[in-house]
C-alpha cells in the first residue's frame, strides 16, 4: 500500500510537468497565424526565392497601399495598364494590361486604352456563382475552399478600379488622380458619403459604382477612354503606381475590408499565406498570361541572355520573411538563406573597405555589392511663415536661412553619418532624371563658413568668435540667433545627426535647437506650422521632375506637401508651366529643362530649404541571385519579382553548413556542471 502511495505521489509530481509540456505543445500548435489562405504543406515549392522585409505590409490592397513594402507586395499579384521596361534605361513605360500605347487626343484630353485579350484573374471563391452577393465571413471554410475559375479582365474592371481608388475614404493614392479625371471628384463626393463603417451595410456604396463618371467611358469589353480635366503628362506614370492596378469587383465586394489580405489579381503570383510578423509566401499563378523575359541585342544586356525568352515568372515561389532587426537579417543573408541584404552602419563597416568597396572576405563568399542612386532627397525646410526665419523676417530671415545652407558640410555629413552612402545635393532634381544638371550647384548651398558669417553680418547681425565657437547676436533683441529644427524620429542616429547640426550652428554662431519627436507628432507640428525648420525627405513616385518640384509649389502649403509654406509667385508661375510639359516630347522637354533651371535659381535666391543629400543605396547580393550582376535597377518599379531568378545549384551550396562539435560540447559541460555538482551535494546530504 505504501509503495502504491509512493508511486502515486511520484506520478503526481510528474503531472505538472506533463501538463506544462502538453500546454506548451497546444500553444505552439494552435497558433492561428495564416491570414488569407492556409499554407499548403504538400505543394512542391519549386524554385524558391527567399527575400526579406523589415515589416509587414500595411495592406495588399493596391488602392490603399501607400508605403514601399505594401506596394512591393501588391506588385506580386496586381498589374496596371503599363509597367516599366525591365531593361530600358532611363526608365521607360511599356504596355502591361494594355495591348499597346494609349491613343491620346490633346484637344479633348482623352486617353483611350485597349486591353490585352489574354488576361485572366486568378481562380478564387469570389467568382463562384454561390458567392455572389455574399460577404466572405458568411460562408463556411469548406465553401470558401471551393474556388471558381478567374474570369477575363475587361474594360469594366479598369473603370471600377479608378472609381474604387476614389471612393475609398482611406484610399492611399487618390492624390494621383485628384482633380484630374472629369467628373470623378464630384462622383467621389457622393460615394464617400455612402460609405459606412461596416462592409455588410455598404449596399448603397457598392451600388453607387454603377453610376457613371463623365470622364470614364467603357467603349467595349476591351476599350476604355479616360478624359482629363487639364493636361497631366504624368498621368501614365501616376497610374503605373500600385494605385492604378486592376482589381475585380467581385473580390472587392466579397472580401470587403479583408480584401487587403485576400488579394485577387492578374499578376504573376498568388498569395499562398500571410502570417503576420513571420512571412508572406507567394506561389506562381498558373493563369498568368504568357509573358516572356524581354529580348535585347544591346551589348549591355548580354548578361541577361540566358534568361531572355523564358516564361515569367522565373521563380515558382517567393518567400518574404519578416525580419525586423538588422542583425538576424544580415546573419540570415550571410548564411545564404536570403538572396539580398541592406546594411546598417555597423554592417557597412564590417563589409566595406574605407574606399567603399566590398572586402575580400565577402567577395570570397560569393557576395556582390550593388550601389546606385535612389531618387530621393534629404533636406531641411524652413517654415516661411515663421517671424524669425521666414518671409516676415525679410532680409534677416533670408540671411539666417542662407547662412545655415552655407554652414552645412555635406561631405562630412555623408562621410560620418551615412558611411559615404549619399551624394551632396545642390539642386532639387536627383541625378539621372530629366531636369538634373551635372554642371549646376546652387551657390547658396555651397559649404563656406566664412561666407555664412559674412551673410549674417551683411544682414545686420553681430557675429563674434573664433575657431569653432562663434556667437551671432541680433542687435534688435540682444539675443543669440536660435533656430529650432524638428526631427521625425527619436532614434540614436537622429540624435547623432542633431549633435552634428548643433556643431554646424556653433561654427556660425547660430544656436540650433533640435526637437526629436515621434512621427505623428512631427506630422502634426508640420501641419500646424509650429516649427521653425523641419528635417524632411522625399522619395520620388515617378521619374518626372514635377514630382519633386511640387514640394515648393505655393498652393501645396500645409497640410499639403509644401511643408515650408513657401510662396513665390515667380516659382508658382514657372511650376504651372513646367508641370504640364511632357518630357517625352523633345521640344517640351527642352522647355521643361529650362524652366527647372529657372526654378532652381528662384530657390537659390529665396533659400526655403537647406539641401542635404541624395541618398545612395548599398546592397549586398549573393552571386546566385541573378539581378545581383546588374548595376542599374529601376527604383520606381515594384513589379520586378517576376524577372528575378536564382541559380538553384549555387544557392543550395551556400545553405549547407556543418556545426562544429567542440564549442557546443564545452558550452553543454559549462551549463550542466553546476547542476550535476548540486545534485551530488543534495544526494550527499540525504545519504
Amino acid at each position, binding site marked *: 500500500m505504501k509503495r502504491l502511495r509512493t508511486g502515486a505521489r511520484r506520478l503526481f509530481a510528474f503531472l505538472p510537468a506533463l501538463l506544462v509540456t502538453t500546454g506548451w505543445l497546444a*500553444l505552439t500548435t494552435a497558433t492561428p497565424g495564416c491570414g488569407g489562405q492556409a499554407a499548403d504543406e504538400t505543394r512542391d515549392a519549386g524554385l524558391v526565392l527567399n527575400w526579406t522585409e523589415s515589416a509587414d505590409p500595411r495592406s495588399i490592397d493596391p488602392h490603399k497601399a501607400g508605403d514601399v513594402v505594401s506596394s512591393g507586395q501588391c506588385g506580386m499579384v496586381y498589374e496596371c495598364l503599363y509597367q516599366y521596361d525591365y531593361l530600358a534605361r532611363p526608365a521607360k513605360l511599356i504596355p502591361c494590361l494594355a495591348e499597346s500605347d494609349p491613343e491620346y487626343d490633346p484637344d479633348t484630353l482623352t486617353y483611350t486604352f485597349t486591353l490585352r485579350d489574354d488576361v485572366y484573374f486568378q481562380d478564387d471563391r469570389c467568382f463562384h456563382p454561390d458567392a455572389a452577393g455574399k460577404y466572405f465571413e458568411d460562408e463556411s471554410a469548406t465553401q470558401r475552399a471551393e474556388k471558381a475559375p478567374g474570369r477575363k479582365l475587361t474594360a469594366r474592371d479598369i473603370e471600377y478600379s479608378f472609381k474604387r481608388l476614389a471612393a475609398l*475614404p482611406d484610399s492611399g*493614392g487618390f492624390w494621383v488622380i485628384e482633380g*484630374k479625371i472629369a467628373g470623378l471628384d464630384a462622383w467621389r463626393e457622393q460615394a464617400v458619403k455612402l460609405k459606412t463603417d461596416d462592409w455588410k451595410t455598404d449596399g448603397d456604396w457598392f451600388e453607387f459604382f454603377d453610376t457613371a463618371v463623365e470622364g470614364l467611358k467603357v467603349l467595349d469589353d476591351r476599350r476604355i477612354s479616360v478624359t482629363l480635366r487639364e493636361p497631366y503628362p504624368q498621368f501614365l506614370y501616376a497610374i503605373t503606381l500600385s494605385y492604378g492596378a486592376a482589381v475585380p469587383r467581385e473580390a472587392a465586394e466579397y472580401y470587403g475590408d479583408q480584401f487587403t489580405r485576400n488579394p485577387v489579381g492578374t499578376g504573376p503570383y498568388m498569395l499562398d499565406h500571410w502570417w503576420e*510578423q513571420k512571412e508572406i509566401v507567394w506561389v506562381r499563378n498558373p493563369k498568368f498570361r504568357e509573358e516572356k523575359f524581354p529580348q535585347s541585342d544591346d551589348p549591355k544586356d548580354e548578361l541577361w541572355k540566358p534568361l531572355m525568352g523564358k516564361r515569367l515568372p522565373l521563380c515558382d515561389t517567393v518567400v518574404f*520573411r519578416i525580419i525586423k532587426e538588422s*542583425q538576424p537579417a544580415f546573419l*540570415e543573408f550571410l548564411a545564404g538563406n536570403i538572396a539580398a541584404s541592406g546594411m546598417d552602419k555597423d554592417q557597412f563597416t564590417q563589409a566595406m573597405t574605407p574606399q567603399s568597396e566590398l572586402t575580400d572576405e565577402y567577395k570570397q563568399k560569393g557576395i556582390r555589392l550593388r550601389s546606385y542612386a535612389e531618387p530621393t532627397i534629404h533636406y531641411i525646410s524652413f517654415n516661411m511663415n515663421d517671424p524669425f526665419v521666414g518671409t516676415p523676417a525679410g532680409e534677416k530671415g533670408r540671411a539666417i536661412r542662407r547662412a545655415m545652407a552655407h554652414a552645412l558640410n555635406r561631405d562630412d555629413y555623408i562621410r560620418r553619418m551615412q558611411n559615404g552612402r549619399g551624394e551632396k545635393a545642390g539642386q532639387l532634381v536627383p541625378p539621372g532624371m530629366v531636369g538634373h544638371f551635372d554642371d549646376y550647384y546652387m551657390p547658396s548651398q555651397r559649404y563656406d563658413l566664412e561666407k555664412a558669417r559674412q551673410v549674417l553680418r551683411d544682414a545686420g547681425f553681430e557675429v563674434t568668435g573664433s575657431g569653432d565657437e562663434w556667437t551671432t547676436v541680433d542687435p534688435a533683441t540682444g539675443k543669440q540667433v536660435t533656430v529650432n529644427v524638428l526631427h521625425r524620429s527619436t532614434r540614436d542616429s537622429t540624435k547623432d545627426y542633431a549633435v552634428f547640426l548643433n556643431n554646424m550652428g556653433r561654427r556660425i554662431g547660430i544656436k540650433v535647437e533640435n526637437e526629436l519627436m515621434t512621427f505623428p507628432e512631427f506630422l502634426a507640428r508640420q501641419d500646424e506650422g509650429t516649427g521653425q525648420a523641419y528635417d524632411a525627405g522625399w522619395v520620388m513616385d515617378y521619374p518626372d521632375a514635377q514630382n519633386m518640384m511640387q514640394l515648393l509649389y505655393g498652393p501645396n502649403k500645409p497640410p499639403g506637401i509644401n511643408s515650408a509654406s513657401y510662396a513665390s509667385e515667380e516659382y508658382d508661375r514657372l511650376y504651372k508651366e513646367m508641370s504640364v510639359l511632357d518630357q517625352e516630347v523633345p521640344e517640351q522637354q527642352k522647355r521643361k529643362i529650362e524652366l527647372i533651371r529657372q526654378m532652381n535659381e528662384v530657390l537659390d535666391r529665396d533659400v526655403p530649404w537647406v539641401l542635404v543629400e541624395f541618398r545612395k543605396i548599398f546592397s549586398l547580393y549573393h552571386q546566385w541571385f541573378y539581378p545581383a550582376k546588374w548595376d542599374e535597377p529601376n527604383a520606381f518599379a515594384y513589379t520586378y519579382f517576376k524577372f528575378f531568378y536564382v541559380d538553384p545549384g549555387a544557392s543550395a551550396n551556400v545553405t549547407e553548413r556543418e556545426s562544429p562539435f567542440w564549442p557546443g560540447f564545452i558550452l553543454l559541460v559549462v551549463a550542466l556542471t553546476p547542476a550535476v555538482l548540486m545534485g551530488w551535494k543534495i544526494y550527499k546530504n540525504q545519504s
Partner: protein
Amino acid sequence: MFAYILRKLLYMPLILFGVILLTFTLFYMVASPDALAKLRLGEKATRMQVLDWQASQGYIEWEDAGLAKKKDIQRMSTADAKLVEFKEGTDYTRSSWVGLFGKYVKSVLLLDFGKDRTDKPVSERLWEGLGPSLSLTLPAFFIAELVGVFFGLFAAMYKMTRIDYSIVISSILVMSINGIALIMFGQKFLAADWAYFPVHGYDTGLAAARFLILPICLYVLVTIGEKVRFNRIVMLDETDQDYVRTARAKGLDENKVLFKHVLRNSLIPLITRWTVAIASLYVGSLVLESFFGIPGLGSLTIDAIANNDVAVVRAIVVLGAVSFMFANLMSDVLYAVVDPRVRLE
C-alpha cells in the same frame, strides 16, 4: 476571504474606468486625429482626404453649409481647392470629447479595439500572438524561476562558502553583461556561426521547438542573475530563523529543512514577484521575439510602436492594466493560502 475578494472585484470597474480614461487622454493627445489620418492615408493625402477619413471615423461631422462648400471645391481644379481654407466650426464640427470617450469605453468593454494598420481586428491579432508569446515565455519563465530558486536556496544553504561565493559572483557576472549583447552574441555564435539552432523563424507544433530552444536559453541566461540574488537574500532571511535551527536540532536532514521548511516560508516575496511577472508573460519578450522572429505579442508591440499603430498599442496597454489588476488580487489570495497568518478581511 469571500467578502475581501468581492470587495476587490467591486473596486475593479472603478480602476478600469481610470485606466480607460488615462489611456484615452494619453492616446488622443499623443496622436491627434489629423496625425492619425496622415498615418493611415500616407503623408501625401490631401486635406479633403484627411477630413473625409476623419468624418468616416467619427472625429468630425460635416455641416450642411460645409457639405455645400465641399461640393463646390470638388468642382475646382486641385490647386484651387487646396487654396480654400477650412475653418473649424464653419464647414465641419469636431465631435465632442465626451462622445468620443463614450465610444471608446464601449469598445473597450466589448473588447473591440478596432483594427490595426493592416485592417485586421486588433483582438484577432492579440489572440494570434498569444500562442507564440506564451510558448516562449512560459517555459522560459518556469525554467528560469526553477533554476533561480534552486541556486538561491543552494547559496543560502552554503552561505559564506566557496559554493555561495561562486554562485554570487556568477550571478553578478551575468547581470553585468547587457542582455541585448548576450542575445546578439548568442544569435551570432550559436545560431549563425556554429549552426546549432536556426537564426530566425518560427513554426507550429513540435517544429516550433527548434526555433524556441535558443531564445528560451537566452531568456534564462539574461534573467537568472537577478533572480538568484533575490532568492538568495530571501532564503538567507529564513535560514537564520529559530524554526530552522529547531528543525536541524530535531535531526531533520538538510534537504528536508531546505525544501520543506525554508522554501515554503520564503514563498510570500516570491509570490509577489511571480504574480506580477506572470501577468506580463502574455506580452512575451519584446526583444527576444523581435530578434528571433517569433510572431508573438512582444514583437507585435514593438512593431506597433515603430509603425505608430495606435490601436494595437492602446489595446496592449489596456490589457496590461487589466491583467495587473487581476494579478494583484491573485497575489493577495495566494498570500493567505501559503501563510495561515495572513487573513483577508
